[in-house]
Structures are given as C-alpha cells and as structure tokens.
C-alpha cells in the first residue's frame, strides 16, 4: 500500500507539473462522459418509458382459445410407434371458447399479486344514421379490466364502470364515432355474426391522443361481458382471459408454465411485442457503440497526455529504475496518471451530464401544441456504466504508453545522458 502511495505521489506530481495538458485531457474525458450520460439518459429513458407503456397498456398475459399446434390424433396414441402417418383427416367442427375457463381463471388468480379477468371478443357491425362500420367488440368485466390495463385514462365523457350500470352501454373510439357521425349518448345498432342485433348507447369515447400505450385501432369497442355473450349467442362462454402479474418480467416464464398445464395459448406481453423488443436491443447496441466511440475519442487525450509524459520523463524513469523501482512500478506510475485523469474527468463528466439532463428536462418542447416531457433515465446505473466505461477507456489508453515506459532500458538513457 505504501509502495502504491509512493507511485501515486509521483504520478500526481507529473500531472501537476503538466497542468495544462492534464486539464485538456480531463476536459476531453468530462465532455465524453457528460454527453454519454445525456444521450444514454434520453435513449434509455425513452426506451424504459416505451417498455413501461407496453406493460401497462395491455394485460401482461392474454389467454386465447387457440393452440400453438394442431390437436394430436387419437390414432397416434392408440398405436404408439405403430401409426406412422394419419391421412384423410376430416377436422371436427370445434366449438370456440375456453373450456374450463373458471378453473383457469382461478389458477391465474392464485399467482401472487395477480389479477385475472375473463373476456369475450368478436366481430360486430355498428350502424348509425345509415353508416355501417365493422368493429371488434370486447366484452369485459369493467371492474377488473380497469385494473388490468390503462383504458380508463384514455376515456372521455364517461368511465369504464358506467358499463356496469348500463348493460346496453358501449364504449367506442372517437374516430369511429366521428366516422359514423355519432356522439356521446347516441344509440348505435350493433349486429353480430350470430344474427343478434342490439341497440347500444355510447357511454364514453376512447380518445387516441390520450392513450398512454398502444392504440388498439379505431375500430375497437368495449361492452359488458354479459352483453357480448348475448350478442354472440354464447352464454357463459369466454374466449380470452386477461392476466396482470405483480412482476411483469415474469410474464414469459409464467405464461409458458401455465400453457404447459392448460394447453391453450398463453401469450405474454414479451411474446406479443417480440419484434419491438428486438428492435430495442438493436437500438441499445447502436447506442452503446456510439457512446463507446465518444469515450474512445475522449481517451485519445489520456493517451496523448500519458505518451508525452513518458517521453518527457525518460531520464526520470531511468533514475527510478537505478534507485530500485521495478518495471511494474514504472508502469503503475503512468497507469495511475491515466486513471487519475479518467477519474477526475468522470466526476466532472457526471456534473456536466447531470446539468445537460436537467437542461433537457426543462426544455420547453411541444408536439402538436402540447407540452412534451421527455422521459429521462437519471438512474445510478447510467452513471455507473458511464464511469466504468470511462475508467476502462482510461486504463486502455494509459496502458500502451505505460508499457512503453516500463520497457525503457535505464542503461541506454544513462549512457546517453552521461
């Protein structure tokens, strides 16, 4: 330890004597770290916000009345190993809907902190004032569905719970209402493929601009589960279960486990958003590649500073070796120089990055006249990544000239100086 302190003293003395070069190199690192924090804060912040929206705007797991593979033929089970191929199969007409859904629902609700709700969805046509539009109607339990996904915040003129009081109520999107010329409180004629027709009153409008998450599309509507079962002539049938978990990240594993148990397709939010999540990974790779390049450029300052220090101090290196300092000691002195510049630069960069993020957060940005608050990630993790990357770059930048210093032959220098 004492030896290291001695080496650190020499390194600091070198840096203090070459104060101008030290400041320039430190500023280079500080600017690199500062912009690293600002850019990664914006990029990671927007990504986190996006993922949060993905998680919050829809159930974490949706169970559908479909299976990933076709049903196994009984002949294959009757003659295991004997039946090679079954031909001429005439598929049986399946009754759609989740069988034994109350037990599945109970199973989902048994998960710690989970909320689960049944739903029946299907295609209907909506007619108003002579105009007809196809709509995907979701029959839901408003009390539970409100806790499952953030629909409530995007409603205008009413609430999800209003459906409970009005079984003939329907919630449609504002663009759909505009297209058919309907307003809040108007009554639509809703017809299903089962031939059932029902008059339904608009209790609220879904405002696309207010949606925090994914917009399911203009032609989406919500009604009471019981009403949907009547419309589709399928009493007591549900074709979807919606599940919200305490830990959204566990959705993939939980869905796989329950799918193995029940056979139906349990689709996690990660599976539904696979392409988007892959895109985010690619975006992150690009982000860190660009950020590494910024730090690499910043580390050139350290490389130049330590290199010129080594060139200036060749005679001192020879003297240190003659005094009894090892090659490793000499290398350590110049590594410490690089690391000190890196560490001070990182600290200054943290201050600069924090100031930049603050400035970005306060910037009066607007989109279509509405104030825009940029989601920023100012977590300690970003600072740790920036600090670690900076120190890594400093170490690499200082190592090359430090190694050169260690290999200086003291005899060559002393002979030349004599």
């Amino acid at each position, binding site marked *: 330890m004492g030896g290291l302190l001695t080496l650190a003293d020499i390194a600091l003395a070198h840096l203090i004597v070459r104060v101008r070069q030290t400041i320039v190199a430190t500023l280079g690192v500080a600017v690199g770290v500062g912009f690293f924090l600002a850019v990664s804060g914006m990029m990671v912040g927007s990504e986190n916000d996006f993922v949060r929206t993905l998680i919050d705007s829809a159930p974490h797991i949706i169970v559908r009345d479909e299976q990933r593979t076709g049903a196994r033929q009984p002949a294959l089970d009757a003659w295991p190993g004997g039946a090679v191929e079954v031909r001429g199969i005439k598929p049986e007409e399946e009754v759609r809907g989740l069988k034994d859904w109350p037990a599945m629902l109970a199973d989902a609700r048994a998960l710690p902190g989970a909320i689960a709700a049944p739903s029946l969805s299907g295609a209907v046509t909506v007619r108003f004032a002579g105009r007809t539009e196809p709509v995907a109607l979701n029959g839901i339990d408003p009390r539970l569905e409100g806790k499952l996904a953030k629909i409530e915040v995007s409603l205008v003129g009413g609430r999800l719970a209003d459906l409970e009081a009005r079984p003939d109520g329907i919630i449609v999107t504002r663009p759909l209402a505009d297209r058919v010329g309907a307003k809040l409180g108007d009554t639509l004629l809703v017809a299903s493929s089962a031939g059932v027709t029902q008059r339904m009153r608009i209790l609220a409008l879904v405002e696309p601009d207010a949606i925090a998450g994914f917009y399911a599309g203009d032609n989406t509507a919500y009604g009471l589960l019981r009403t949907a079962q009547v419309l589709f002539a399928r009493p007591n049938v549900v074709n979807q279960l919606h599940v919200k978990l305490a830990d959204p990240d566990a959705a993939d594993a939980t869905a796989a486990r329950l799918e193995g148990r029940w056979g139906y397709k349990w689709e996690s939010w990660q599976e539904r958003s696979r392409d988007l999540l892959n895109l985010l990974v690619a975006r992150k790779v690009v982000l860190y590649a660009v950020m590494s390049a910024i730090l690499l450029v910043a580390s050139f300052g350290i490389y130049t500073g330590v290199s010129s220090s080594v060139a200036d101090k060749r005679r001192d290196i020879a003297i240190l070796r003659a005094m*009894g300092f090892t090659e490793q000691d000499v290398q350590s002195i110049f590594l410490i120089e690089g690391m000190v510049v890196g560490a001070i630069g990182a600290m200054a960069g943290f201050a600069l990055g924090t100031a930049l993020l603050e400035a970005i957060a306060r910037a009066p940005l607007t989109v279509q006249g509405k104030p825009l608050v940029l989601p920023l990630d100012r977590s300690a993790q970003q600072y740790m990544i920036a600090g670690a990357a900076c120190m890594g770059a400093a170490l690499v930048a200082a190592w090359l000239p430090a190694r050169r210093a260690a290999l200086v032959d003291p005899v060559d220098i002393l002979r030349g*100086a004599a």
Partner: protein
Amino acid sequence: MTALLAVRQVSRTLVDPEPVSLLRDVSLVVERGEFVAIVGPSGCGKSSLLYLLGLLDRPTTGSVTIDGEATDDLSEAQRTHLRLARIGFVFQFHFLLPELTALGNVALPMRRAGVGRAQAEARAGELLAKLGIAGEGWKRPDRMSGGQRQRVAIARALANDPVLILGDEPTGNLDSVNSTRVVEEFRRLAHEEGRGVVCVTHDREVADAADRRIHMLDGRIERED
C-alpha cells in the same frame, strides 16, 4: 570474510546493430570501507562496468557478487530489490526528480522500500543535515545550487543505508569547492561508515583521494595503483 564486491572475468558485448565489445575479461574486488576510483579515457568501458556493478546491466560472461550474493541467476525483480536495498547511485548530473522537493527525493527510495512517509522524511531530513543542507529540504531542485543538488543526490543514494555506493562522474559538473566536499563525503562514507565506494571519474582530485585507482583501456583493466 567475503569481499563486498567481487567481479570475476566479466565481459560485455553488444550485438545490435553490430557486435561491440564494451568489457573484456574484467576482474575486480572491492572490500568494505574501501574507496576505489575507476579511471581511463572516454569510451574505455568505465560506465559500462559501473552499470554492471549496479545490476542495471548483465554481463555477457563472468559473474558479479555483491555482499556475498551471486547476482547472475537472479531474476530482474530480485536484482531490482538488491539494488534498492544495498546499492546507492550518484550520477554526474544530480538526476533528482524535478517535481519533488529535496526531502521528497531523498525519501523516495525509503518509501519504495516500504518505510512510511513521515518516517522516511524524518530520516531524509537527518541525511540532509548530515550533508550540511538541513535548511534546503523543502526546496525543489531548480531552486538549489549545483553543489546542493549533488549533496541531495548523495543523501538519496544513502537513503536505504546501502553497503555499496556507485558514483558515475559525481564531481563532473561541480566547481572545485563543491567537488572537494563531495570527495570528502565519499571518503567519510568509506572510511568512517565502512561502505564500499566505487567512482568512475575523470577528475584527478577524486582519483587521488581514492584508496585505489583502477585504470581501464579498451574495455580491459590496464593496471591498478
């Protein structure tokens, strides 16, 4: 009792870019309490021999034993450690680290040897006082005279209480007054403190003050008196 320094049939040849023989079949023994001067014309191999004695270079053939320890098979780290503990160098140009004070320079070898800063600086102060520059400890080398700097360099060489002091033209850059002081100090180190002192020099005063003079020519020891 073993000799402090024993050099047996040492040769040193550089092979790159073309073979050059720096030392040929040199043998030398230095006892404790002895002040030896190595003299000869420029390029005769004086400094090359000194670097071998100081374990900064390795002989092509032959052996160097210091304080009873054969150095030929030692690793570079072991040689460095031996140099730190038992050898002190004084060069023609003081070669003090310009960023450090006189105290800092003298304390440096002690601190490398593991002595704490306060203790090292206290002993450095004592050494500077012994050499008559007690009040100069907090000065940097560029604020000191040539004679003061060389005395700081001697103090640095004595920091770890070495048994062998090696001087490479230690008075080559000093006026006559300071030169005499340095010579007297070397004699005292040898005769009063029992250290071995070996000086490469062109300076007649140093050579005359030494107990023994080794005359070199073309990489060989020509004669001794």
